[in-house]
């Protein structure tokens, strides 16, 4: 047994009849309607591990659980400091991610896990502690628009990401913008995301060259920012929450799906996978998105 309630179970070798899964669907059934139709994120809990979130931003419509927020930082002696309760965004990045996710999955509940604040030292400790906490809390989706290049932390992040994978937390990470290592975006247990060139927040692609698995909008993205301001941002940091929002839609409609199945559903409806569909449908969800989501997205555009 490991920490966080994760208990490895034995693998069984039985005839497939014994392991039959009533109601299991085939890939042929995975249509836009089946994957996303009518979904709005209801019942889904999303953690954003970042610089904090301005929970009182009116554009977020109260979707942020301010009282459930938590902050991890490092004191002068290098010790980890944990503080529960409401906090603000130190930079604007976390609020930007929250705004993107909320625009796609408006009914999802968002919790801020603040690991980036003033100062430069000990951030990997705080980052790891924040992700570990989010996995322990069983969030359905965890957005990580940050990473660490420190190899010393690779194993620790690998362990917590695997634990999230097996305990049903889908971890969505921003890939590095250049060809250098960034953890945990290199791990198979996470969904790693980079930018595509679209200005459509709902259009995404499957990347044929892993470890980055999906490409979503991340260029000139209009975002919320700290202090109730707005900004226009570019980077993989903003592609990840688009996929996190879409994953929140899937998990709200199909809570029974495991992380690898959510990945599969995303892959099945990616723009470059749905080649035979008419252009207005291929890779887009607009035909089946909830009216609320569409209204918000149009307003944001």
């Amino acid at each position, binding site marked *: 047994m490991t920490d966080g309630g994760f208990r490895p179970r034995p693998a069984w070798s039985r005839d497939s009849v014994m392991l039959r899964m009533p109601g299991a669907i085939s890939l042929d059934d995975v249509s836009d309607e089946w994957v996303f139709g009518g979904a709005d994120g209801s019942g889904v809990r999303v953690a954003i591990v970042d610089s904090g979130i301005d929970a009182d931003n009116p554009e977020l419509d109260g979707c942020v659980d301010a009282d459930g927020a938590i902050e991890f930082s490092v004191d002068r002696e290098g010790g980890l400091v944990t503080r529960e309760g409401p906090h603000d965004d130190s930079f604007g990045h976390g609020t930007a991610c929250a705004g993107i996710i909320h625009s796609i999955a408006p009914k999802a509940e968002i919790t801020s896990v603040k690991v980036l604040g003033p100062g430069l030292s000990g951030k990997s400790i705080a980052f790891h502690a924040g992700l570990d906490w989010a996995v322990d809390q069983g969030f359905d989706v965890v957005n990580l628009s940050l990473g660490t290049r420190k190899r010393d932390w690779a194993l620790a992040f690998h362990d917590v990401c695997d634990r999230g994978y097996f305990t049903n937390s889908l971890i969505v990470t921003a890939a590095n913008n250049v060809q250098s290592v960034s953890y945990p975006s290199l791990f198979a247990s996470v969904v790693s995301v980079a930018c595509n060139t679209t200005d459509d927040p709902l259009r995404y692609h499957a990347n044929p060259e892993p470890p980055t698995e999906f490409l979503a909008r991340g260029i000139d993205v209009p975002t919320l920012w700290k202090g109730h*301001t707005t900004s226009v941002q570019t980077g993989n940091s903003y592609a990840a929450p688009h996929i996190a929002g879409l994953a929140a839609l899937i998990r709200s409609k199909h809570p029974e799906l495991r992380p690898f199945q959510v990945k599969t559903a995303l892959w099945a409806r990616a723009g470059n996978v749905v080649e035979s569909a008419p252009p207005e449908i291929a890779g887009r969800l607009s035909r089946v998105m909830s009216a609320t989501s569409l209204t918000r997205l149009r307003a944001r555009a």
Partner: protein
Amino acid sequence: MTQSTTEPPRPTYQAIVQAAVEATGSAGGWLLAVGEGAFTVLAVHGHDGRANDRIGAQVAADGAAGFVATSGQPAAMQISADDADNIGAGGGVGTASAILAVPCGSEEVIGVVELVDPAAGAYSFDDVEVVSMLADVAGAAMTETGTGSTPPSPASLALGLERLAAGDAGRYAAVARAVESLL
């Protein structure tokens, strides 16, 4: 901010920052080394040359550069007029309308290249990519001079250079100048 030295800018750092400024059409920029709780200014280019006075100065680890140093992710942003916290970025002169900050270092973030005010009004993803390449070179340069830890591998640098050359030869030339000054 405190002035701390009269040491001239290292030519390599200066070449990297100049290449980044010119490749992106920025008004100015600087290279910052990550220190204990603050940045140290290693090189500055642009801003009417006034910013050279700042070489060796300690600057607060906040704003876009501070975020980049801690998150490991580049930041390219257009600044709204009411975001006063971004005043002083990118060389400490004036108010920026757009900022691009990119981390340096292969295994950990040891520095940040930060640019401001591109002629185009906003930084493109191509700008992010070319400055990321230059930041990799900066990371190698900082390692060579004992400021950092481990340089990027020649293979990863070559891969990035080939990608840039395929897409935009002009940008590749800027990177090549910086690499030449490093050798």
